[in-house]
């Protein structure tokens, strides 16, 4: 037999580590600064050389009203300052040596800290549930102080926790103190959005070339997609359909005197919307009938006989267009038109083609990240211990793998790209507009802030309304889910009308809320339309005036109109950016929370396999607590020899299931040790251990698959003949053969519903096939008819032969094969012995037996 080694504390599991860390933090929190008005009351009672170890404020006074009392502990005494509605507090001083026990009483809505002295009890502090955690940390500290003050002291009784059960999980954020929403499980206010997004992007890192190419494509597409508007305005309108500066025919000759424009020429130019500045004529190169005027950067006017060619100086956009499209000086309008049309078609094809490539790349990236994340999360879920599952709802965990991961994919593939795309788009469009004409550009963008505000406001309201609607819908479904299955009860009590009324009330509520949502929609749509319309009007008005004045061309005006149509969409999108970020960050946090959780039960590096287990089980002074407070098992010791059957009995909550959870090592013990064949459970590889433990549960769980697959769940290598043999031994063979598909029947499929008794026999077959050394039966014969029960009993008798068996049963008759019975009571071992011995002893078991005999007599009646 190997010697039992107790592991050093701290490296055993994560839970303990955490507890230690928080203890360190807490010792600092236990000393709150004492305010000036309290000092004078306190100072006289604290002797010199005493050190304040704890000083805590309450949020209630002892008489039960809100207020602040103080609890102070030094290394020698404990001082309570209780105001009780008076100006100066009542001061209670208790020397630490007097204190026998510290009780934190969890009551309803408030708690009381009570000290038990040798001869009396003193209540020293009262506080609401908000301070539960603070004071929960205080009582162990007080106990520690007491221990230090009387070093010779023996065991003291910890009567720390009684009263209503506290919630297992923190309900408030540890950082900001805000309540944590039920659905989230993490504090949405405190999550560091940026850090999370970066961490999420880490998953994209392996695929960075794809992301980079996609981003590059995105930028190219964004730029090209703006080209049609430019082409339409700059070329189609300004140069082909409505050239702003036509060739002018002059009827007079003397238009230029010594380098100054004659009023007549000015008039002609003005009426053709060519506005030269006063000091326009800068260069005049007169040669016969030809001359040229340059007006700064705006115009070049060339005169050729009676013809005036007015040409606007090309801006950067004209130059770009010329570079691609127009090489000759005076192109033919028709051929130019054809060129523009061809260019438009090409641009369209290119943007769409690039867009498709980019879309596919992003979809690939998004799906790939989701795939990785989903699999990683699921694999990690299976590494986690039961403890993780106990504190969370199944639906919540499931939704993290499906909804949250999907949301992340949406964000990575769409959200981020949208954001970049829209930002770039706005930036480029804004710059072009300002460059074309800064005045009109500013006017055009004037309504933008209004749209941002409207979108944000509307988004918030819509969110609220839809949530309300969603809750109403859920309420309505709840009624249906309630009454339709319960229709027998409704009819039996003739409550149809009431149910209909109830439904109608809810239904009307929904109706009203739907209308509310509709109202919001119908108001928002036209409002946005109106704002958009206003911005268009502004452009028409301001731009129109500018066209008339010749400051811009018609083409530029059209470019503005086109851009405005495309400007508002991105603005609206970006307005909702925060919401999108928030949602993605929360989803990320929820997923990462799973990934960051460390399994409580993990193999140690030097753990061993245990291939030939005998089945000797020994509990050595085992204590265990699920929540760190209430002990589910408390100092349990016993020994079971191989092949022995132990019946476990006791009230519910006595620790039967806990004992079994510990044998399976779903949890690690807090104190003491469990040994199998003399080896500490924690030194055995978890996989090796569980391979030799068989479990038949109260409500056996069958997976979606064939009957044969379910029987061979723990032993995938079993032959078909072995599966049939196991099913026969479990009395399951006959009913399985009677399914049309025999062992190939899919469990739960239509036409092959498997009843409770049948499920149990399949799970017994599963255990038989696994052939474990240690077998656990959890109330295996409940809720079946007598005949089935005898079939199951028979199957169980075959199963338990030659194995170490732990059987839980509420009905004591099912334990008749047990060699010994183990009676638990409030986590402690109450009695152990054979049936006869225990009856002789006339203790708990004897009482239980009598009760059940009486009950069955009543039933038989």
């Amino acid at each position, binding site marked *: 037999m190997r010697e039992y080694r107790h592991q050093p504390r701290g490296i055993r599991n994560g839970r303990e580590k955490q507890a230690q860390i928080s203890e360190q933090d807490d010792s600092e929190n236990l000393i709150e600064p004492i305010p000036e008005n309290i000092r004078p009351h306190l100072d006289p009672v604290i002797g010199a050389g005493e050190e304040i170890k704890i000083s805590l404020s309450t949020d209630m006074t002892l008489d039960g009203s809100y207020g602040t009392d103080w609890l102070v502990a030094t290394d020698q005494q404990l001082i309570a300052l209780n105001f009780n509605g008076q100006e100066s507090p009542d001061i209670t001083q208790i020397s630490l040596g007097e204190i026998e026990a510290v009780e934190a009483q969890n009551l309803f809505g408030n708690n009381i800290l009570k000290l038990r002295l040798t001869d009396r009890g003193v209540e020293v502090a009262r506080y609401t549930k908000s301070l539960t955690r603070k004071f929960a940390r205080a009582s162990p500290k007080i106990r520690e102080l007491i221990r230090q003050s009387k070093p010779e002291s023996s065991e003291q009784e910890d009567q720390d926790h009684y009263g209503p059960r506290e919630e297992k999980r923190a309900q408030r954020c540890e950082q900001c103190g805000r309540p944590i929403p039920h659905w989230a499980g993490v504090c949405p206010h405190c999550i560091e959005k940026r850090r999370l997004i970066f961490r999420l992007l880490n998953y994209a890192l392996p695929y960075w070339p794809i992301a980079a190419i996609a981003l590059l494509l995105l930028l190219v597409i964004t730029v090209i997609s703006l080209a049609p508007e430019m082409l339409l305005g700059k070329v189609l309108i300004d140069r082909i359909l409505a050239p702003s500066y036509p060739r002018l025919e002059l009827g007079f000759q003397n238009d230029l005197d010594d380098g100054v424009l004659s009023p007549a020429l000015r008039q002609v130019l003005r009426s053709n919307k060519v506005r030269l500045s006063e000091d326009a004529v800068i260069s005049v190169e007169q040669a016969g009938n030809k001359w040229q005027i340059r007006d700064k950067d705006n115009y070049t006017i060339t005169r050729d006989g009676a013809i005036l060619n007015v040409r606007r100086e090309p801006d950067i956009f004209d130059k770009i267009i010329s570079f691609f499209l127009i090489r000759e000086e005076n192109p033919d309008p028709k051929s130019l038109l054809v060129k523009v049309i061809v260019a438009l078609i090409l641009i369209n094809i290119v943007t769409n083609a690039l867009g498709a490539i980019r879309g596919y790349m992003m979809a690939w990236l998004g799906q790939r990240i989701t795939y990785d994340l989903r699999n990683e999360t699921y694999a990690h879920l299976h590494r986690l211990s039961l403890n993780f599952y106990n504190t969370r709802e199944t639906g919540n965990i499931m939704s993290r793998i499906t909804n949250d991961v999907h949301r992340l994919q949406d964000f990575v593939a769409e959200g981020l790209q949208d954001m970049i795309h829209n930002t770039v788009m706005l930036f480029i469009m804004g710059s072009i507009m300002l460059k074309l004409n800064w005045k009109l550009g500013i006017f055009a963008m004037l309504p933008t802030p209004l749209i941002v505000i409207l979108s944000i406001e509307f988004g918030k309201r819509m969110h609220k309304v839809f949530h309300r609607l969603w809750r109403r819908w859920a309420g309505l479904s709840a009624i249906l889910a309630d009454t339709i299955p319960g229709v027998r009860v409704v009819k039996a009590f003739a409550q149809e009308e009431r149910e209909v009324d109830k439904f109608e009330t809810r239904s009307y509520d929904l109706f009203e809320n739907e209308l509310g949502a509709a109202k919001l929609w119908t108001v928002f749509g036209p409002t946005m339309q109106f704002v958009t319309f206003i911005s268009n009007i502004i452009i028409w008005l301001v731009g129109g005036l500018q066209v008339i004045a010749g400051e811009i061309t018609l083409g530029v005006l059209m470019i503005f109109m086109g851009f405005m149509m495309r400007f508002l969409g991105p603005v609206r999108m970006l307005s909702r950016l925060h919401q999108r970020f928030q949602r993605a960050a929360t989803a990320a946090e929820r997923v990462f929370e799973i990934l960051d959780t460390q399994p409580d039960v993990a193999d140690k590096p030097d753990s061993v396999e245990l291939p030939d287990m005998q089945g000797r089980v020994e509990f050595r002074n085992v204590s265990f607590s699920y929540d760190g407070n209430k002990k589910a098992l408390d100092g349990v010791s016993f020994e079971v020899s191989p092949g022995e059957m132990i019946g476990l009995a006791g009230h519910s909550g006595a620790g039967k299931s806990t004992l079994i959870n510990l044998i399976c090592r779903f949890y690690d013990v807090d104190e003491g040790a469990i040994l199998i064949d003399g080896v500490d459970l924690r030194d055995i590889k978890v996989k090796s251990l569980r391979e030799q433990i068989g479990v038949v549960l109260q409500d056996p769980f069958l997976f979606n698959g*064939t009957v*044969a697959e379910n029987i061979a769940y723990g032993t995938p290598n079993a032959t*078909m*003949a*072995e599966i*049939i*043999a*196991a099913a*026969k*031994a479990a009395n399951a*063979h*006959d009913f399985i*053969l009677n399914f*049309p*598909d*025999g*062992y*190939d029947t*899919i469990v739960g*499929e*239509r*036409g092959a519903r498997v009843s409770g008794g049948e499920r149990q026999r399949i799970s017994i077959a599963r255990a*038989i*096939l696994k*052939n474990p050394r240690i077998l656990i039966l959890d109330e295996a014969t409940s809720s079946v008819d007598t005949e089935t029960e005898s079939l199951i009993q028979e199957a169980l008798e*075959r*199963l338990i*032969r*030659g194995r170490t068996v732990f059987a839980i049963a509420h009905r004591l008759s099912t334990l008749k094969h047990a060699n010994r019975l183990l009676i638990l009571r409030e986590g402690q071992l109450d009695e152990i012995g054979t049936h006869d011995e225990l009856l002789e002893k006339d203790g708990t078991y004897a009482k239980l037996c009598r009760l059940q005999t009486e009950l069955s007599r009543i039933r038989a009646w």
Partner: protein
Amino acid sequence: MGDFHLKDEITILDPESITLERNRFGDLTLKLGDETYEKVRIMRAFPLSFPEKYIVFRVRNEEIGLLEDAEKIADTSRQILEDELRKAYFIPRITRICSLEENHGASKWKVETDYGMREFDVRSRDDIKVLPPFRVLFRDADGNRYEIPDCRRLDPKSQSLLDSET
């Protein structure tokens, strides 16, 4: 109460000792060495995954034993066994899908089988089961069964009709 041994739980029949015959009523008769069982019923333990293996012989709900592999018994007996199995498990093989109409998730199939033309209704897609890789099983609204042993062998039209439902 002796130790429990899994292999004691089933009787595996020696294929050499099995003789199957029909008596004058046409009932299946199993001769097992010296013993003779009349009116024997046969059942497949794994009708889908191993149709020719693990055949259970029973007489009035009493199990005689398990034949691990039908191919191992003598030819004449095997012929009788196969006839009997074909009677007990009537699962026509679909060779061609002529038409398919879908209506609210239920579907009407018109098919050619190795037993002739047949029309049947399937109530939901759950009743069409694809056993990887290429085997497809049908259960119609009345509980009849059909199968496609290998859907790749169907003609392209049948395959595209099938694809729309699986």
